[in-house]
């Protein structure tokens, strides 16, 4: 069963169509990069996936649960790292994680076990009592990933999560996410505008003017549309989209 199924998704802000008939699937353990220029509809798609906005047309299924008919079951399967940090800077790492665990209804005992495991995995155990304000950007992102994984979701959604990180932290984050896919069979949907973060074996989704103009494995799409990822992306996102 696919971890994420997006089918016939359309969304409009009044008269302006932001997404049109977007459909794609993401299998277990897959890493998918969602690319698109500014205004392509990525933020709208994220807002729909995280249920900030209500669905207008089409459906989203996470772990087999429809966001339309079973939103609570769907949200249980979803971990999110937003583009802008949503951590409480004055709270410690552990306090931030406990808050998130509580929002997902985990008991204190369950939270302790899960927090210990995720902090250990992110190599943040020593930092658990530090205020988030004292951490650098890379560590803050790792706290957010630990937080997103606390309730053991099947899908991890990261919205431009590498923005503001130095190259070493970006690389470390990228590698870490791929290890999650391999070892935990978690599916990752990663929105980015940085092409160097995409690897040939990744699933690639390219949004342009609200439409999914390409989807498939990155190396196959590159060959089909120009030889390398940069020229394929540029070719696919400079052409006008047929209405």
């Amino acid at each position, binding site marked *: 069963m696919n971890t994420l199924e997006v089918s016939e998704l359309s969304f409009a802000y009044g008269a302006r169509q932001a997404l049109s008939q977007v459909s794609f699937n993401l299998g277990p353990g897959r890493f998918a990069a969602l690319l698109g220029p500014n205004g392509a509809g990525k933020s709208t798609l994220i807002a729909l996936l995280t249920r900030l906005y209500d669905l207008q047309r089409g459906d989203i299924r996470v772990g087999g649960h429809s966001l339309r008919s079973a939103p609570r079951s769907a949200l249980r399967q979803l971990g999110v790292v937003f583009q802008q940090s*949503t951590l409480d800077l004055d709270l410690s790492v552990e306090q931030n994680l406990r808050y998130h665990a509580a929002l997902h209804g985990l008991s204190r005992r369950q939270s302790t076990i899960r927090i210990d495991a995720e902090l250990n995995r992110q190599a943040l155990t020593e930092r658990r009592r530090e205020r988030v304000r004292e951490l650098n950007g890379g560590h803050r992102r790792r706290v957010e990933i630990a937080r997103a994984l606390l309730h053991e979701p099947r899908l991890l959604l990261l919205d431009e999560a590498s923005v503001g990180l130095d190259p070493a932290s970006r690389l470390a984050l990228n590698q870490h996410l791929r290890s999650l896919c391999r070892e935990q069979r978690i599916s990752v949907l990663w929105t980015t505008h940085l092409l160097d973060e995409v690897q040939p074996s990744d699933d690639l989704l390219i949004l342009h003017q609200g439409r999914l103009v390409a989807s498939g494995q990155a190396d196959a799409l590159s060959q089909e549309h120009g030889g390398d990822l940069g020229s394929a992306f540029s070719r696919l996102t400079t052409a006008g989209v047929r209405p």
Partner: protein
Amino acid sequence: MNAYWQCFSGIVLREWLRFVLQRTRFLSALVRPLLWLLVFAAGFRAALGIAIIEPYDTYIPYEVYIIPGLACMILLFNGMQGSLSMVYDREMGSMRVLLTSPLPRTFLLCSKLLATSLISLLQVYAFLAIAWAYGVQPPALGLLIALPALLLVALMLSALGLLLSNAIRQLENFAGVMNFVIFPLFFLSSALYPLWKMREASEWLYGLCALNPFTHAVELVRFALYERFNPLALAVCIGLTLLFALLAVLTFNPQHAALRKAG
């Protein structure tokens, strides 16, 4: 059920930690009512004589009269400020994290309103403690009886703040809220002067004051502080709290803000 309890207690704990860690915010929230009490009331005392009115048994100095109104003023500012920050946060900040919880959105919003209201009560009681030291000393039992009244008022004002923030986009900055919500609610109420005084000045202003929900909030707290029961004020506050909360939850939709922006 346990998941709901865990979630609610987590939200309350977070508000408590933020309250403890942001001491300057707490102190600045106390400065406003203390200025009214220590400066305004002292200067105004000579100008305004207070006749014997319910719930007081005797003539009272102006400082005694003004205390319930100032306690409610703290709740009014906190309620409006808290709800505004919820709106500001909902597109990019902590509100997005809250909304990814799998528990029902209504439950999350009500928990948040209740948590911020509980924290506001700490500020009110800190203010009442300073007022006590200053010499305004309601009965000790009254301070206890006032607790549920203050909580109800805090909830009513928070829910009103959220409802207004949902409905009126122009209220997204605090100056607008001050001018169009906080000041009219505060000055057109019995917080600073008894309504009979207002009636002497203007019948229609008196009418507005009598209709103002904040008047009923202040009177509920005033009566409770002096161990009296004000059924009308209680009924109005309960009714309006339920109404505001229901409308606030029904109209809370971040999508509306995005659609308005686009439209």
